[in-house]
C-alpha cells in the first residue's frame, strides 16, 4: 500500500489507466492493483483519500522513527532494567500505536464503511428466509440457537416501520405539523430498536446470557417484521377484533421466536424469567402502543413543547367501536352499514 498509494485507479477498463498514472508522475508508475475494481468516476474523493492515506503514512513513519529512538535510548540501560521490562514496554508501545492508528482511521468515512461492511454481507435469499423465520418460534432451548449477526434486515425493517407509521398518522386524519410527525416516527422506531436492544443486552449481561449486542440488534430488528405486518394491515382496516387477533397471532409469534432464542442462550430459571418476561412485555406493549396510544402521546409532547397557550389540536378519533374503514375503501363501509 505504501509505494503505489500515490496513484489511484479511476477507470473501469483494466488497462485503460496507464496514462493517468503517467500523468500524475508520482515518482514511479506503480499500479495499485487492489483498487482495480473501483469504478468511481469522481477524482474529487480519490484525491481526498489519497491525501488522507499520505498523511497516515507520514504519521506512521514518524511514529516508527520515534519508537526507534526510544528503543535506542533504552538499549543503553538494558543491563539495569532487564530484558523483561524492556520487552513489555515495547509490546505495550506497539499495541498502543496500533490502537491509535485504528482509532484515527475510524474517523475516516470510508474506513468506517469498511468496518460496517461485514454486517451487511447478505444475499436476498438469506434476508427472505430470515424474515420468514422471524415468525417461526423454534422449540429448542437446550442448545444455543443460532442468531445471525446482520444489520441490513433490521435497518430496512425499521425504515419500513417508519414509513408505515407515517402512513398510519396520515390516514388517521391527525392534523399535526408534518415535521413533527416525521421526527416522531423516526424517533419512536429507532428509539425502540436501539433502546430496547441495549436494555435487554444489559440485562443479558447481568444474568450472564450468551448473546452479543450485534445479535441482540439483529434479533430485535427481525422481530419488528411482525409489527410491520400487523400495523400495515390494521392501519388500513380499522377493526378491533382483527387487530387483537393479529396482535396475539403475529406479534405473539415473533415475540415467541425471540424468547425461544433468548431462552436457549440463558441458564437458570430466574434469569430466563427476567430476561424473557421483560422482552416479551416490551415487545407486545410496543405494538399496542403504536396502534392505539400514539396520538395522545404526540399531542402531549407538542403541548409540553409549545406551551399551554397553544390551541388544542383538531383531530378525529380513529378507533371507534364500530367498523370504520379507510378513505380508499370507505364506500364499501357505507354499503355495509346500509344493509
Amino acid at each position, binding site marked *: *500500500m*505504501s*509505494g*503505489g*498509494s500515490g496513484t489511484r485507479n479511476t477507470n473501469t477498463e*483494466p*488497462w485503460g489507466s*496507464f*496514462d*493517468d498514472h*503517467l*500523468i500524475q508522475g508520482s515518482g*514511479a508508475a*506503480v*499500479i*495499485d*492493483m*487492489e483498487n*482495480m*475494481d*473501483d*469504478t*468511481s*468516476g*469522481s477524482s*474529487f*474523493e480519490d484525491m481526498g483519500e489519497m491525501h488522507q492515506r499520505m498523511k497516515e503514512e507520514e504519521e506512521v513513519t514518524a511514529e516508527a522513527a520515534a519508537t526507534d529512538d526510544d528503543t535506542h535510548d533504552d538499549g543503553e540501560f538494558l543491563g539495569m532494567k532487564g530484558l523483561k521490562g524492556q520487552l513489555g514496554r515495547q509490546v505495550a508501545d506497539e499495541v498502543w500505536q496500533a490502537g491509535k492508528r485504528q482509532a484515527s482511521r475510524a474517523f475516516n468515512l470510508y474506513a468506517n*464503511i469498511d468496518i*460496517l*461492511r461485514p*454486517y*451487511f*454481507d*447478505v*444475499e*436476498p435469499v438469506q*434476508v427472505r428466509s430470515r424474515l420468514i423465520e422471524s415468525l417461526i418460534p423454534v422449540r429448542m432451548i437446550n442448545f444455543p440457537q443460532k442468531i445471525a449477526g446482520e444489520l*441490513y434486515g433490521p*435497518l*430496512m425493517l425499521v*425504515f*419500513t416501520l417508519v*414509513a408505515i407509521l*407515517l*402512513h398510519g398518522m*396520515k390516514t388517521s386524519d391527525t*392534523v399535526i*405539523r*408534518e*415535521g*413533527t410527525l*416525521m421526527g416522531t416516527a423516526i424517533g419512536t422506531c429507532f428509539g425502540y430498536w436501539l433502546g430496547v436492544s441495549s436494555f435487554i443486552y444489559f440485562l443479558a449481561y447481568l444474568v450472564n446470557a450468551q448473546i452479543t449486542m450485534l445479535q441482540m440488534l439483529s434479533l430485535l430488528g427481525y422481530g419488528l417484521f411482525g409489527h410491520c405486518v400487523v400495523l400495515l394491515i390494521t392501519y388500513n382496516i380499522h377493526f378491533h377484533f382483527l387487530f387483537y387477533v393479529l396482535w396475539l397471532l403475529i406479534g405473539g409469534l415473533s415475540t415467541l421466536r425471540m424468547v425461544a432464542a433468548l431462552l436457549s442462550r440463558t441458564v437458570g430459571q430466574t434469569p430466563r424469567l427476567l430476561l424473557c418476561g421483560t422482552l416479551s412485555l416490551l415487545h407486545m406493549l410496543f405494538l399496542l402502543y403504536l396502534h392505539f396510544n400514539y396520538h395522545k402521546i404526540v399531542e402531549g409532547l407538542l403541548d409540553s413543547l409549545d406551551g399551554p397557550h397553544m390551541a388544542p389540536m383538531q383531530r378525529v378519533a380513529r378507533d371507534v367501536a364500530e367498523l370504520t374503514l379507510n378513505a380508499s375503501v370507505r364506500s364499501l363501509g357505507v354499503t355495509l352499514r346500509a344493509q
Partner: protein
Amino acid sequence: PDWFHWTRTSFTEASRPFAGLSDVSISEDIPVEGDISVPVGSSRRDEEFSTLDEPVKETILRDLRAVGNKFIHVLYPKRSSALLRDWDLWGPLLLCVTLALLLQGGAADNDDQGGPQFAEVFVIVWFGSIIITLNSKLLGGTISFFQSLCVLGYCIMPLTVAMIVCRLVLLGSSGTVSFAVRLIVVTASFGWSTFASTAFLADSQPPNRKALVVYPVFLFYFVIGWMVLTFSPSQ
C-alpha cells in the same frame, strides 16, 4: 485468467513493485493485445477548454443545458452512464425545491406553520438519498457517493411532474374521479422513478444483491409518492 491474478499479487507488493516483472511468463494460448497510448499531449485538453473569458450567460446556459440533458436521460432511462459520469446536484436541488414548494400550502399546514412541510420534504429527500447511498456502499456497490445522490435526486422528476398534475387536477374538482386520476398518475410516476433509478444504479451493484439495493429505493420513492398523493390544498 491466471496471468491477471499473478500480476495482482505481485503488484501489491508495493515495496518493490517491479521485482517479479523479469520472469513474467505469458502462456502461448492467450494472445496479448490492446493499445497503449502515450499521454504526452493530454494536458492540452485543459487549455482549450477555458471558461475564464466567456460571457456569464454562456456559462449558465451550458450548465442549464447539462441539467436539461440529464432530465431527458431520466425521462428515457436507457442504461447510459451520462448521468453518472459528470454528476451535479443542481438538478436535484431544483427538483427538491419545486416539489417542496408545490407541497406547500396544503390542508395539513396551519396558517402560521408553513415551514415544517417544506423542511420535511427537504429532509426526506436528502436524508433518504444519503441513507440509500450508504446502504448501497455497505452492500458493496462501486458507485461514488455523489453519483448516487445525483441519480436519486434526478429520478424524483417523475414525481415532481405528478405533483404538478395533481395540483392541476385538484384545481378542477376533488371528488372520487380526481382521486382516481391522481392515484393513477402517482402510481405511474412512482414506478417510473423506481425503474429509472434502478436502471442507473443497478449496474454498479453486485448482481446477486440488486434486490437488497432496490428495496430502500422503492421505499424512498413510495414515501414521496404517498406524500404527493395525500396532498390536499387548504380551502
